């Protein structure tokens, strides 16, 4: 039986902060331009190099390095739209990126799942992508869906099966972070066409977008760039993410790390704008800090949590929206650490005006799925959403007449104002759940139960049979082509 998807509740900050001063942003942008002009970016794609060369980039075809004069970069970036809409299967779930709200997605792309029933740890599969799409379809905190784990039961066409599982189980916008290469991208765009219905709708309300990672330091991935070019040509938003790691793939200082990652992102955004001026793009700077003893990427160290909001401010300096890093804990299990690492960075991203963010629901640095983790993260999300929402100081809210009526040493329990307004106060549905026999229940246990309840009871509006069949046909064709 079909059930309604609850309305989105994006974070709409009532106030904003600026972390970096204009002068600091100028210094960072100037350093990025100097890197692009003097050091250059390695770009192992003939197609991309040719586009750069055709538009004034200084290309060394033998080394596959492009250097971009400052003016070329600034001119190309002028075409990038600051605001646009990411569409959804249902129009009421379209995401209007207008700088007034932060929409968050799940994390991705994990490779292991704590099984929904046996609770055993195992490799992830397509069913997990589908179940989590349905679970998060129910959550008002989730504005759009990243396939949260890899469909490893479809080794060669996993990214397409992830998109299929997503479109079949959520009415929200889907953003892939795994589609790589022209071949896969063509199939993915075909799938987006099925959802949108026609090319015009696909361009106006793109139901699918793509995130491509660069390779630090200062290199692009051929497959990533070429899939991005196809997406951009089809009017689907594409973003570039740099995950530079302080000390190993970037300088061991924060500012140096930021500009190295920024140069990677901007070089790719320039390419897209050269090829398709005005194509919707986004900037995603998610640096880590290297663990000196293991070389690991650490996303949530003390200083690390400041990096994501700084990335958002740099995106805005370039005049493009951002996909900010939110959540993404280094913890091994959902618990104190996963909550400790998440909240203030999310709030700061919202307060600097980030438009989108991704990262709810995985632990072990974006690798492991606990089904209940997305509910725990959603609870933190709503705490932050409310913190950012500002205070109502209307006469009804200040309630002077009520205070006068009750007077010193009375109580407010019986007053009509209390009955009306207490219901509007929001309590967590994870914490504060009374235990039989007194006290409150363990919120993690409540989250597990709630995840099970959603999976049993929530069945979002399905795709039309014709759309389902068409997606299946496309998948079969792709599988056949790979010999799966």
């Amino acid at each position, binding site marked *: 039986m079909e059930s309604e998807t609850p309305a989105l509740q994006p974070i709409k900050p009532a106030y904003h902060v600026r972390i970096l001063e204009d002068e600091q942003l100028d210094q960072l942008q100037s350093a990025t331009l100097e890197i692009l002009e003097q050091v250059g970016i390695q770009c192992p794609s003939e197609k991309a190099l040719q586009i750069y060369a055709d538009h004034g980039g200084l290309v060394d075809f033998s080394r596959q390095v492009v250097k971009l004069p400052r003016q070329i970069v600034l001119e190309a970036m002028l075409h990038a739209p600051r605001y646009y809409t990411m569409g959804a299967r249902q129009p009421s779930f379209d995401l209007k990126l207008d700088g007034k709200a932060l929409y968050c997605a799940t994390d991705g792309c994990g490779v292991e799942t704590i099984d929904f029933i046996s609770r055993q740890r195992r490799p992830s599969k397509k069913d997990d992508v589908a179940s989590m799409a349905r679970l998060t379809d129910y959550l008002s905190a989730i504005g759009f869906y990243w396939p949260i784990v890899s469909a490893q039961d479809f080794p060669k066409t996993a990214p397409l099966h992830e998109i299929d599982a997503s479109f079949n189980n959520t009415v929200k916008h889907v953003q892939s972070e795994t589609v790589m290469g022209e071949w896969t991208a063509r199939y993915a765009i075909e799938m987006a066409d099925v959802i949108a219905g026609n090319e015009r709708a696909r361009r106006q309300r793109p139901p699918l977008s793509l995130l491509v990672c660069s390779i630090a*330091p200062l290199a692009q991935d051929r497959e990533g760039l070429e899939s991005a070019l196809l997406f951009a040509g089809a009017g689907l938003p594409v973003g570039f993410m740099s995950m530079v790691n302080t000390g190993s793939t970037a300088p061991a200082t924060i500012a140096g790390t930021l500009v190295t990652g920024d140069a990677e992102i901007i070089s790719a955004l320039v390419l897209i704008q050269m090829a398709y001026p005005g194509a919707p793009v986004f900037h995603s700077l998610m640096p880590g800090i290297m663990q000196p003893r293991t070389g690991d990427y650490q996303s949530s160290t003390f200083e690390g949590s400041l990096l994501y909001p700084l990335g958002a401010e740099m995106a805005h300096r370039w005049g493009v929206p951002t996909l900010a890093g939110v959540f993404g804990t280094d913890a091994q299990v959902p*618990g104190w650490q996963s*909550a400790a690492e998440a909240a203030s960075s999310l709030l700061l991203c919202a307060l600097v005006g980030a438009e989108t963010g991704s990262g709810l629901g995985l632990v072990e640095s974006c690798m492991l799925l606990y089904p209940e983790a997305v509910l725990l993260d959603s609870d933190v999300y709503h705490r932050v959403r409310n913190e950012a929402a500002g205070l109502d100081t209307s006469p009804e809210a200040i309630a002077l007449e009520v205070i006068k009526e009750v007077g010193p040493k009375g109580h407010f329990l019986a007053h009509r104002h209390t009955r009306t307004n207490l219901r509007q106060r929001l309590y967590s549905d994870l914490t504060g759940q009374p235990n039989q026999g007194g006290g409150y229940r363990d919120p993690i246990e409540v989250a597990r139960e709630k995840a099970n309840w959603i999976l049993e009871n929530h069945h979002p509006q399905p795709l039309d049979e014709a759309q389902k069949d068409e997606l299946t046909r496309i998948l079969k064709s792709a599988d056949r082509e790979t010999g799966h």
Partner: protein
Amino acid sequence: MPTQYPPLEPLRTTYRLRFLTDKQLDDLQSATLTIMEKTGVKFPSKKALTIFAEHGAQVDWESQIVRLKPDLVFKALATVPRFFLMGARNAGYDLQLEEGVTYFTMDGCGVETIDFDTRERRPSRKEDVGVMAKIADYIPSIGFIWPMVSAQDHAETAPLHEIDACWNNSVKHVQSETVMGEIPCRYAVEMATVIAGSREELRRRPQFSLVVCTIAPLVQDTAGIEGALILAEAGLPVGFLAMPTLGTTAPATLAGAFAMGDAEIISAAVLMQLHAPGAPVFHSLMQAWADPRTGGYVSYSLDSRTRYAPVEMAHHWGMPSLGACYGTDSREAGTWQGAAEVALDPFMAGLACADIVTGMGLSETYTLLYPEQIIMDVDLYQRARYQLMNLDVNEETLALDTVHAVGPGGHYLGQRHTRSHIRESLVRGVTHQIGEDGKYQNPRQVAIDKVDWIRKNHNPEPLDIEKQSELRRILAAADKEICKG
């Protein structure tokens, strides 16, 4: 041998947030003034009522309700200092309140302790206060000391024994939240005078301060207010803490609860200024919620918006603010809930530029001490401290020469710049401590181990023997006088 003391690490906010607009602050202040003028606040103290009456307030002696006209409120508050000094046993730890700097303390006053050695839950006692003061003494994140739990092995004089335990185990400023009534407060002032050396020095660098709770709605506590007057006379800082609960002791709307709690605080602050103009006072408003299903007190609703708006209200009155952080409703240390509820707190308090902030280290809504909780809360504090810091953007940190040298597709591991900066780039909290097996340790276990290490290895600078004896003499006299009944 006393441990070398590291410098304090207060929050220093390089960018700040205004939660409320000027108009909202004016509207809230205007509502507070209306409540004080029309509804009034009950002061069940003849001494307090007399002071009000002598200064022109409208006093109803029968109902003990005082009504204050705005003119009188503003005239009285004109003498309130916006910033003042909170002295410490070791002058290097004096806290000079100033714009953009926030000092934190622990939570209080719990009533049960998870025993440091047996890990059994038991009623708290004086020894616990001493051990936690010693731990806090070692931690640079903690600017001043609150007795964390009640010295329940000392019955009626527990509050005085708590401050004795603090001064014997820490060189930092001590703030009590339990000393109540004229007689205990006189003893507390006497003890503080011993620490300072003289009444004049105590007034110059007050090494003791007090927080007094109001009773919602719109009532003052007799013992609290009369004790506060004693401290104000001696020039020691006194703060008033309102804890309105939405829907039971306050309107079920945040703005209403803020205005009402503010009226309780401001009426008490006015009394202090009428009695001792210029006395250092501070403002503290910590709203809570009633669970409609159980009636239970909930510190953290999902909608805890503008938790730090009262800091701005305090500043709007020209007073420093004691902000509230932590205080989770979680029943155990190191749980998801224990971080989910409180993780934003120190960051938000810093953004709002609260002057002083309480709350590290207790669970179960301020009642239960897990010794390791303070270390985990400090971890959250340090996250906030780094987030509020300025980012260095200069030639050395931009490292363009190094970027040129490495070029596309290389790595930075062998660079001199990396060797110079890698140590400062990863600041480890309890979450990134590597164990002997090469894996990250459980953060809670790291915190437990750290508490044990501090207990064994930190030796706070001892109090002079003469001062220790003098404190004991005062406590003996207080025990004799106060516990005689």
